[in-house]
């Protein structure tokens, strides 16, 4: 086990809070790296965390055009899904398939959040969420290839396999690349972030303010943590398998993500889908060649 096994609910709760704060710092670092590359001072590292906390004390306005129960529930569902993914993944090293299911809930929530407001701007974001869902091919392909290699989708088994046979990145480099593309898509200001494009204001979140936005941002920080953790542990588990190495690797990957996001313009929606499909097909070719 990477993390000390415990069933204490308080321990699990503290793990969630710690991960959320750490991921908030990573996202702050990410913004700082982007700013420094663009020769700006950039916000302080704790800016993302402050931004999230700020929304908890801001006034919540629910648009008249919105479907109120859905407006609230679907945003809470997104945060809940990532709490579950975090507990199943980094804390308990359970089945990877549950994390994929949580990711699917995330995509459905993105769509529902936009639709629930009744606002045309949010609906644009919502339509793009559907389009971006079609580009999530690496999400399905990479675990399938990992299963072919390790005969298991339990994270603990995948790590044990890598400790004996070496990291999976050596055996499935293109699958690792496809998963890395997936991590990029969940980073703010990423080239594939058609859902969050500035041309559609704030995408599906345009009408979400106050505590709902705070809860959404909390879910997204956990999403970033879980996906980054999964990428590192599934493909570099032979080397990166202690809490300290994982945290250091997360900081390193965040730097790389910052460079990518700062230097790459946002691609068109159609190209975003095509590029991710190409990486998924390359990953499949990888397993056929080896």
């Amino acid at each position, binding site marked *: 086990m990477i993390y000390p096994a415990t069933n204490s*609910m*308080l321990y699990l709760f503290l793990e969630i809070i710690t991960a959320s704060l750490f991921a908030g710092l990573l996202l702050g670092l990410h913004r700082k790296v982007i700013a420094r590359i663009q020769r700006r001072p950039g916000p302080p590292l704790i800016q993302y965390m402050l931004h999230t906390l700020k929304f908890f004390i801001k006034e*919540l306005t629910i648009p008249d055009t919105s479907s109120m129960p859905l407006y609230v529930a679907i945003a809470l569902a997104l945060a809940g899904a990532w*709490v579950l993914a975090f507990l199943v993944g980094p804390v*308990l090293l359970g089945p990877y398939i549950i994390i994929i299911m949580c990711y699917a809930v995330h995509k459905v929530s993105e769509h529902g959040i936009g639709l629930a407001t009744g606002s045309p701007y949010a609906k644009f974001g919502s339509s793009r969420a559907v389009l971006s869902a079609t580009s999530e091919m690496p999400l399905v392909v990479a675990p399938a290839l990992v299963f072919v290699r390790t005969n298991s989708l339990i994270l603990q088994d995948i790590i044990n396999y890598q400790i004996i046979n070496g990291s999976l990145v050596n055996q499935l480099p293109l699958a690792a690349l496809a998963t890395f593309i997936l991590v990029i898509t969940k980073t703010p200001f990423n080239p594939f972030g058609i859902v969050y494009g500035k041309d559609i204001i704030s995408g599906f979140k345009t009408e979400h303010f106050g505590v709902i936005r705070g809860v959404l941002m909390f879910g997204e920080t956990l999403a970033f943590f879980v996906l980054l953790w999964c990428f590192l542990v599934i493909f570099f588990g032979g080397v990166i398998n202690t809490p300290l190495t994982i945290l250091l690797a997360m900081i390193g990957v965040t730097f790389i993500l910052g460079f990518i996001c700062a230097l790459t313009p946002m691609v068109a929606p159609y190209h975003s889908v095509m590029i991710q499909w190409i990486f998924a097909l390359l990953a499949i070719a990888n397993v056929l060649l080896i």
Partner: protein
Amino acid sequence: MIKTMTKNRIMSLLTSLPLILGFILNPPLVISIGLLTFFIPLSSYYIGQVLMARPKSKKEEEERKKITFTGY
């Protein structure tokens, strides 16, 4: 408005209670995961509703709702 505040306070207490009880009683892992998944977002929503900035009086509320045209 006072009614809404009271309702939000009660709801924040009710949704935090399963978490607090869970911390004290230490239920089985599956129940812990279920409680955390469901009640963390829900209780944070209601706690946020209590914490959030609100108009303090009816007059303030009316003032706030006044529409000012700024050229849009």
